[in-house]
């Protein structure tokens, strides 16, 4: 689906408002005619929003995205979804780590307990 670097850069430029009016028109005509191109554009859109939330975009790309794509409620909801997924993901990692730690601690205490019984 996503293979061509030049094409990916073109799609990113569209979302960041870096294309001329003519280039935008050509881009949109292609979206109407080519389902695979539309799908690739959707993939890149999500990834740009990921990079925005992860703060992996340059300052100017951030500003461009905020003043274009992120002006719509739908895109804002996507950004919010990504933020919540990160929260949820990190909470899950914390719980997993805590349970591993508890298990580790339990094992140490149990070993010590067995050691005491054997010594007695």
């Amino acid at each position, binding site marked *: *689906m*996503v*293979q061509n670097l030049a094409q990916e850069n073109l799609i990113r430029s*569209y*979302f960041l408002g870096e294309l001329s009016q003519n280039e935008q*028109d050509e881009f*949109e*005509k292609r*979206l*109407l*005619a080519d*389902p695979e191109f*539309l*799908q690739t*554009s*959707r*993939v890149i*859109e*999500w*990834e740009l929003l*990921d*990079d925005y939330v*992860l*703060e*992996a975009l340059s300052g100017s790309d951030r500003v461009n995205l905020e003043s*274009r*794509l*992120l*002006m*719509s*409620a*739908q*895109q*804002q*909801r*996507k950004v*919010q*979804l*990504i933020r*919540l*997924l*990160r*929260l*949820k*993901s*990190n909470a*899950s*990692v914390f719980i997993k780590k805590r349970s591993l730690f508890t298990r580790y601690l339990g094992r140490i205490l149990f070993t010590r307990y067995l050691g005491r019984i054997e010594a007695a």
Partner: protein
Amino acid sequence: MIRQSLIQIFIWKTCSDAEYLADETLDRVMLRVPKLRETYKGNPSAYIHAVAKKLLAEHLQLENSVHENPRTTDIETEKMFGCLERCLSNLSPYSRDLILDYYSEEHPKNVSHRKDVAEDLGISVNQLRVRMYRIRKTLEACMQACMGQESSV
């Protein structure tokens, strides 16, 4: 397919009523079809795009080109979190683990993020991108349905 593409273009142009605009574009095109059949030569998508562009200009004029930057409220965020829990539980365990791992802070917060996740999973970056796209799409549709139900309660 063309309708879906039009909706997507209007969304990316930050139009709040993308579905209406897509339908209006197609209605206008359909009205012209009998005449176009005799005279129009070239790619039909170019004509559809021209109609959509004109409609967008009219729409923006009506909206006075002013967009308000929508912000989600705390109540909405709470609702979204509830829906997210519900929608994540609808995913297969593999997809759920994959998306949670993808967004984990344990991966670097830069451009090599996707590469790092793909390496961890032993798949190519492209495979990861396609899988992530499918999961997000499912999750987004579920979230939309769930948020719709929540707000109608």
